[in-house]
């Protein structure tokens, strides 16, 4: 067991005029995750610390936060791999609900806006719609997204323009645009062919660095830009 020092951003909109940092120290194994340290703080020192988590195994995407200045999943990063004190902040660019919990309403509205579901007007076949391995590989990378918002809230273009659709939604659109079974590609391309769509992306690569699923987001955005180029000109 080692002493782990944390510096956590706290904010209770009912009491505090603005967010502030508070220091904590808990006992943890170096191989524990940052999430374990946060839960130890909540369980033993201050029950009012508010955070979101569910699976604790990097699958659900609910505990995206800023740890030592970088967006990551608290359940996916080991204490021994981050320097102390571990500075923990909520994702930047969203309204804070309380402490580490942010309001993701707009994020999911943008997700819904790109129509993240199969669009196919043909009558469904008896069994499944077949697809070759090659056709599947075309969008394999973007199926891995867990909608944690680490990418969008690391994107300077999003910080400066909250209307920017953001890398997460573009990843979701990519997943369907390049799916051979889907027919809604053009609709989605039109939605992204906007100032607030893919053209807001300045190829800064912050999103790629932040993505806990190691999705090559900027490449996906580039593929959509290229597709637009060849379809519209």
């Amino acid at each position: 067991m080692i002493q782990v020092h944390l510096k956590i951003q706290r904010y209770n909109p009912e009491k505090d005029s603005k967010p502030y940092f508070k220091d904590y120290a808990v006992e943890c194994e170096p191989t524990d995750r940052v999430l374990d340290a946060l839960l130890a703080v909540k369980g033993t020192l201050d029950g009012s610390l508010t955070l979101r988590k569910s699976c604790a195994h990097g699958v659900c995407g609910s505990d995206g936060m800023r740890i030592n200045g970088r967006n990551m999943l608290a359940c996916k990063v080991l204490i021994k791999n981050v320097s102390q004190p571990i500075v923990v902040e909520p994702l930047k660019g969203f309204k804070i609900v309380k402490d580490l919990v942010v309001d993701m309403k707009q994020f999911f509205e943008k997700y819904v806006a790109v129509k993240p579901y199969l669009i196919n007007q043909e009558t469904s076949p008896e069994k499944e719609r077949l697809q070759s391995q090659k056709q599947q590989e075309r969008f394999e990378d973007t199926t891995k997204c867990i909608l944690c918002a680490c990418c969008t809230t690391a994107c300077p273009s999003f910080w400066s323009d909250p209307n920017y659709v953001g890398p997460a939604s573009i990843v979701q659109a990519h997943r369907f645009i390049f799916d051979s079974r889907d027919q809604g590609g053009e609709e989605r391309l039109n939605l992204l062919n906007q100032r607030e769509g893919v053209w807001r992306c300045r190829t800064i690569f912050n999103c790629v660095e932040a993505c806990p699923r190691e999705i090559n987001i900027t490449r996906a955005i580039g593929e959509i830009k290229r597709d637009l180029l060849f379809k519209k000109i």
Partner: protein
Amino acid sequence: MQNSETFQNGRPMPVNSSFELFAWLFMRLSGILLLLLAIGHLVIMHLINSIDTIDYQFVVNRWKTPFWRSYDGLMLFLALLHGLNGLRTILDDYLRPGAWRIFWLSIMYATGFILLFVGFLTLFTFQPK
């Protein structure tokens, strides 16, 4: 946060225009062309000739041929629009939608197009004395 544009699902209404696509493409193509044109310009003005020998007479001789007038015209056109679009992007990035953004964008467009106009006026109407 939300400006006067019409919204759909909390998002700006999609507009049916590929302006941003063309702007993006223009930046890339003009960038490549400018690289060649500017290197050519640099070689002629600074390596082959020295700035000490470049004077009024030099320009008169150069602009006798339509080729060099077009060369300079193309460079003026591409460089100004490339720069203007870059500035537009920066203003879009750093200023929130609203009065200040409109103000600076207007100044930018006005200055840019006046410069473009004056440049072309000189190029087309220049007569050696």
